[in-house]
């Protein structure tokens, strides 16, 4: 029997040592998403760099108020997108985030959704800014 109501080692490790936690001053894109049901609030900052006409995520940072899964999903997504082309980063699904954490308890899957949404919105924020 799989005990899937508990967190994986990876989730706990990210909670203990969150990666890329903090703020980016003058970010190219930023988004705050929240889930009033659970009370989680995530903010994601991105810094974009253009290399040979291609956009890359040069830097990414997160700030999260929330449960273990909320913190771990926002931490891991930063490691998944850092130095990645924007076109690749925006394709990251919540399943991929959950998998990267060695799975999430079913009741916590919405946290991975939140993290994916934060990234998409931060990218959208960047696109909107560059349009002007």
């Amino acid at each position, binding site marked *: 029997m799989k005990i899937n*109501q508990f*967190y994986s080692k990876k989730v*706990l490790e990210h*909670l*203990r040592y*969150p990666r890329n*936690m903090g703020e980016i001053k003058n970010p190219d894109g930023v988004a*705050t998403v929240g889930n*009033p*049901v*659970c*009370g*989680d*609030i*995530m*903010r994601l900052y991105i810094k974009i760099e253009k290399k040979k006409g291609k956009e890359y995520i040069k830097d990414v940072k997160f*700030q*999260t*108020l*929330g*449960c*273990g*899964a*909320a*913190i771990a999903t926002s931490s891991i997504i930063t490691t998944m997108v850092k130095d990645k082309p924007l076109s690749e980063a925006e394709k990251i699904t919540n399943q991929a985030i959950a998998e990267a954490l060695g799975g999430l308890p079913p*009741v*916590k899957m*919405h946290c991975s959704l939140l993290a994916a949404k934060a990234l998409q919105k931060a990218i959208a924020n960047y696109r909107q800014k560059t349009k002007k």
Partner: protein
Amino acid sequence: MRRIYLDHAATTAVSAEVLKTMKPYFRKHFGNPSEPHQWGRESKVAIEQAREKAAVFLGAKTSEILFTSGATEAINLAHKGLVEVSYKEDSDKIPHIITSSIEHKAVIETCKHLERLKLAKITYLPVDKNGLVKTNDIKKVVKPETLLVSVMYVNNEMGAIQPIKEISKLIKKINLARFNSHLPPIYFHTDATQAIQYLDCRVAELGVDLLSLSGHKFYAPKGVGLLYFKKGISLIRQQDGGEQENHLRAGTENIPYIVGLGKALELITEDRQQTLRKINNLKEKLISGVLKIPEVKLVGGTEKKAPHIVSFLVKGVEGEAMMLLLSEKGIAASSGSACTSGLLEPSHVLLAMGYRPEEAHGSLRFSLGKDNTKEEIDDVIEALPRIIEKLRKMAPKL
């Protein structure tokens, strides 16, 4: 790594003495108490000795004690059993139950079950900001069909001691008037699970008609509890089968666990004053230490609180994250935050007390036990501020 257990309201370890008393009943005295041979008799005697101990503890008669698998089963039997009897007596009347909005799920879900099947109407009493039921509110909602008032003795999430004696006095007064107008009496049940270890639980002093408890909150094993029901009260059993427990709870008795429960109750009487003093001191130390952290508040003040439960609300931090980081440091605590519930809803107790959901998310509960030490509390007071600081630093500024 050191391990500091501060989640005694969730469960306790079986004490060495209790375990020692239980052991012979696994392999040596294993007989079925329903059998008349000496093996059966040995088991029967053991159950009746445990029943005697429980009766002494509660100041009750042995015939008023019914062993169950825990408080949840006792509560189900008390509520559903009384409702069924009420239908047997008057099949046209839908009985009414008054309970509080801060009961344990065992009571709330049992009431909801009866409500869903339209077998009973339920009134959930509000509580004040300290988490206390107001006795006068009961007066306002009593109806001729009221069958039962069910109010917990000590709340498991924040420790508020409910005015059980006051409520029972009121019910006695109401029952006197009902007697004169030929209405059946209202019964009074209390879930005393969190009170057993530290408060006076003699049923005559409390004035309750039914009382439920679970052994594993006071160093007996999980899976055993009892229902006290006053002589003269009829119940319809909820588990059908053999004639065990005076036809009220079928199934071969869990002898070693019943023996353990009896022993644990006996030990409470021996150790209570000493444990109480110690725990009160530890609790005060914990409260004053934790309240030094900025923007932390105690849930519901310090008055009328059980000695072993202390609940805090930490601003700007989510309870589960705190709990997990404490656990990483070898400290066991608990939280009523939405994220720990499995249902993603913040604690119904905190909401009933008037706290906003965003406040309730920062819930952190410690519950002390007889073996906790001053040094352990010192360690918690040292570890917690760092954890809170770390998590606050992680949160976005809004």
